[in-house]
Every structure is written in structure tokens, then in C-alpha cells.
């Protein structure tokens, strides 16, 4: 009994260490600016910060921009990543070089790409547009998702496709009807990770976007004005920014766990 209580209090403590900063941000979003640094729990609770975000800033637009860009970029890159990952996994397309290039692109500091992309975009007239941002995010997601999906496809026994192909399917049919459904948990997990990657991206959004196309991270950064950091409003924005991540992870937790432990299952 005592041991249980002890170990539970240990776990509660560990959870608090992780959760407390987030909870405190949420608390700060509910108090007026002047009380944000006080240690009182909830002096004068108010929704004023949220109202300001939406009514006086354009947080609604920012939020929508983020959603559109993040979702579309995953939708766009996922089919390509699935096919590329499959080709890597099954046909050794491009050999070691292609795999290495895929991995290497993840190690490059984003700044190294930001300037060239900006030049290209300015020439193509793609700056300050959601289309442009979506395309960049899709391009960033592509190698990342390819790498993850390649792992999932490699863990699917090749005999499954052999069975499908002797059963009368083409190679494409086997991929479409057997491999993709079997890899569904992995694909879902990858989609969430890709979404999070785009949702949190800041640098490209800042460089390529304007006020109309600003995403949530850009908008939040803009709250650090020369007049000081409007910490209550930032807190409100952050609270809202976390929301879709919570929903996404909660919604597909099952797939995420399945997908991430895919190799060990079979």
C-alpha cells in the first residue's frame, strides 16, 4: 500500500515536471498582462488575451494558414513518399547514394536551403503565397516521410507481395491493395509526424511569407515587439498552437504506437 503510494507519487512528480511549464503557459493565458509574472495561481481570470489575439491581431487567419499549409503539405508529399520509400525498400533504387542523400537532406541546417529557395521563389513569384509555402513544406516532408516509410515497408514480408502477384495482381496492384493497407498504421504515424514538422516550422514561414500568409509560429514571434514581449498573448497563442497536436496525437495514438513499434510486431 505504502509502496504503491510512493511509486505513484514518484510518477505524479515526473508528470508534473513535464506538464508544469505547459500548464503554467495555459494559466498565464488566462490572466491579465500585469499579473503574468506573479506567482498567484489565477488572479482575475479573463479571456481578454484570446479576444485580443482574434479581434485585434489576425490570429484566426494565422491559424487557418497553418492548418492549410500543414495538412496540404502532408497530403501532397505522402503519396510521393510512399512510392519512393517503397522503391528504396524493394528495388534498391538509386542504391546507397539515394538513401544517403535522403538522410543527408535531413541533416542540412534549414538556413542553408532558405536563401536559395527564397531566390527561386522570388523569381517564380511564389513568395507570400500559401501555395509556395505548401510546396516548400511538401519538399521538406518528402525525404523525412520517405525515410520513415522505407523502414515500414522493409518490415513488411516480401512474400506478401509475392502472394498477391501470383494471385493475379500486378506489382502496382500488390502495392495498392496489400502493402499500403498493411502499412496503414505506419503511414498514419508518419502523417502525424509530418504534420507536426510543418506545424512547427518557423524559418521558411518567416522568410517566404508576408503578413497575409503568416503562420502561427510567425505570428507568435511577432508578439515579441519592441515594446516588450506580450507574454499573456503569447501564452494564449501557444495554448492554441498546442491544441491540434494534442488532438492529432490523441486521435491516432493507437496507430502511432502500432506504427512506431511496427518492426517488432512482424
Amino acid at each position: 500500500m505504502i509502496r504503491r503510494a510512493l511509486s505513484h507519487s514518484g510518477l505524479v512528480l515526473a508528470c508534473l515536471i513535464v506538464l508544469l511549464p505547459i500548464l503554467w503557459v495555459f494559466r498565464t493565458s488566462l490572466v491579465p498582462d500585469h499579473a503574468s509574472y506573479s506567482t498567484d495561481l489565477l488572479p482575475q481570470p479573463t479571456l481578454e488575451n484570446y479576444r485580443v489575439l482574434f479581434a485585434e491581431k489576425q490570429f484566426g487567419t494565422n491559424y487557418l494558414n497553418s492548418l492549410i499549409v500543414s495538412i496540404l503539405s502532408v497530403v501532397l508529399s505522402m503519396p510521393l513518399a510512399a512510392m519512393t520509400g517503397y522503391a528504396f525498400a524493394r528495388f534498391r533504387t538509386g542504391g546507397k547514394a539515394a538513401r544517403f542523400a535522403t538522410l543527408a537532406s535531413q541533416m542540412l541546417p534549414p538556413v542553408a536551403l532558405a536563401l536559395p529557395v527564397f531566390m527561386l521563389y522570388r523569381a517564380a513569384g511564389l513568395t507570400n503565397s500559401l501555395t509556395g509555402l505548401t510546396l516548400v513544406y511538401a519538399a521538406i516532408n518528402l525525404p523525412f516521410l520517405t525515410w520513415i516509410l522505407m523502414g515500414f515497408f522493409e518490415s513488411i514480408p516480401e512474400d506478401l507481395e509475392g502472394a498477391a502477384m501470383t494471385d493475379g495482381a500486378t506489382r502496382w496492384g500488390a502495392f495498392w491493395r496489400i502493402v499500403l493497407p498493411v502499412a496503414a498504421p505506419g503511414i498514419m504515424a508518419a502523417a502525424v509526424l509530418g504534420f507536426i514538422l510543418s506545424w512547427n516550422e518557423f524559418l521558411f514561414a518567416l522568410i517566404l511569407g508576408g503578413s497575409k500568409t503568416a503562420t502561427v509560429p510567425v505570428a507568435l514571434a511577432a508578439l515579441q515587439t519592441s515594446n516588450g514581449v506580450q507574454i499573456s498573448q503569447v501564452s494564449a497563442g501557444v495554448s492554441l498552437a498546442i491544441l491540434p497536436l494534442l488532438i492529432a496525437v490523441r486521435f491516432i495514438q493507437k496507430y502511432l504506437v502500432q506504427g512506431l513499434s511496427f518492426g517488432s510486431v512482424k
Partner: protein
Amino acid sequence: MTAITLDNISRDYGCGIFGVRDVSLAIDEGEFMVLLGPSGCGKSTTLRMIAGLEVITSGRIRIGARDVTELAPRSRNVAVVFQSYALYPHMSVRENMRFGMKMRGTPLDEQDRRIADAAEILGLDPYLDRKPGALSGGQRQRVALGRAMVREPDVFLMDEPLSNLDAKLRGEMRQELVKLHRRLGKTMVFVTHDHVEAMTMGDRICIMRDGQIEQVGPPLEVYANPTNTFVAQFLASPAMNLIPARLTAAGGGLGITAGPLAGALPAREAALYARAAAEPAILGLRAEDVLTAPGPATLPVSGKVIVREALGAENLIGIETDGVTLSARTERQFLPAFGDQVTLHADMSQMHLFNAATGVAYPKGT
């Protein structure tokens, strides 16, 4: 016409590594052909080449009158039962069986009829709506078989389908498969590394080693006349006793000295192996030809008991003399203790003789 003809097929992985090398084999229509060999000898590769799942780097394959060498797997009308079963995990048993028929455009009522038939034969009725994950190994194996059956293919290809089953189930499935083959009359190629499966199921067996064929023939014929020491040892358990030997002419007949074994050969064997006199040879004796009582053509061997396995119906006894061991399959009454000195009797009328340098058998008969 669904005979399968392999013409000098090879699978070359490059750098001189071959999965299969220059294999030629003619499998008759309706035949149950067993590919037998140790791990890595190229059985699966051969099977996958027939199915079209493996690159054929040289040679040609014909199924019936069709040259299928360049054909995609789906156009060959073969069904494969994989060692891992390869059931589609996201589909129910029923959908697993339906998939192949759906791909081929079989009418729906015909699909249902065939699924019902197969489920009946294989006892799968209670499981039709389960996913493979919720089945036992034996049940999965039957689903894999059912999935192949409903397709009504020209040829069944099976890659060690029984290796994941326990001994009892394996015995049952062995008989079920033979029955199934008799019912369907289809050409079947069955891969295994288990000599009991090969002996009991095959119309003919094809023994492979290192990507090449060592011997092809009806099981009993191969058992009686192995062409070399590899086949002789592989096709039985315990493996055939092989003892370095020397034949010498002695008083009009032929004498043999093989380790602790020495004496005159029976007249028939003396005539047969006269050619081998003075060449270094290897004497082969199956365990069941080492007897506990002397007979008309036996030579005595004495030794110390080092192996003693009582199997119930029979005993396996191994004796050792001067570093040579000899195993015997004896009646169950004969059960000496470890370390006992016993005398056994080698039935020389059943002997095999191999060339020591090449391992190739001296031909029996004329």
C-alpha cells in the same frame, strides 16, 4: 498440359555467387515433385523462379507448352504456399481466399461456391470471418492452402509449408496434402528439408546441394540407390554409415577391410564391385542393415556403446571402435547399457560402395 520443364536455369547473384546453377528438371503433369536439400541449397530460389518471383539469369522455364520465362507471376497460373504463409493480415480468411479469384474475375457465385468447398475440405468453416492474426499456425497453414486451392491453378508450388507445425499436426497435414493431390490431380512442387516428408509424399524427389541437382527419382529408388555419399547421408536419419574401405582380391573372391569390419564379400557383391578393387573406397551401410544377429551375408563388428536411444518401437544404437562409429537401428529388445562391449552384424548384401575421391557410387545392378 501442365508439366513443368526447367532448362538449364540459373540465378546468378554476381561475384560468382549462385542461388541456383544450371538446373534442368522435367516435372510430369500431375506429379508430386519434392525438392529436398539442406538449408541454402537453392530450393526456395528454384520454386520462386517457377513462380516468377525470382529473376532467371539464364535458362528457360516452360509450363505445359507455354514458355513462361518472361511472363509475370500473375500470368503463369501457379499458386504458391509460402513458408511464412503470407496471408494478407488485413483481410479475413474469406477475403484472403477471395482475393485471387477477384483479381481473375471469377463470377461472384462461383467464388462463394469454391470458398465453401475449400472451407469444407480444410475444416475452415468456423474461421471464415476471422483475421489471420487470430488463427493458430495450423489453421493459418490451411488457409494458405485454401487460398491456393480456390484459385484452381495449373500448378501448386509449396515452400516448406509444414515446417512451422508441431510433429503431430505435421504428420496429419502430410497425409491431407497427399489426399489433396490425389483428389485434384494437379502438378505440385513441394520444397522441404525433411527427408521423411520427401520419402512419404513425393512421386519423385529431387535432391539439391549448392544450387545444383544431385539426384532425381522415386523415393524408394533413390533410397536404395543413392548416387553419391551426399544423397546417401541426407535421405535418412540416422544418416548412412560411411566407413573408409579397401577391397582386395582374396582367393577368387573379394575381401573388404573397413575400419573394424573385415572379411569376404558375398559372391554377388564381389562380382559387382570387382572394378573397385585396390581403389580407395567408402563403404556405406544403412542403420537398418546393421543387425543384432548373424545372417548368411553378415560380417561381425564389435564396439563400445556410445549412443543409446530407445524410441519405443525400435532402438538406435551407436557403437565405436578405433574412432569409427557405426549406428544401428535395432529391435526394441536389444538395449545394451552405455559402455557395453557389443557385437553387431553388418549385412553386406545391402552394402553401398562409393569412390573415396569423388564420393560417387559404384553402380549397382548391371
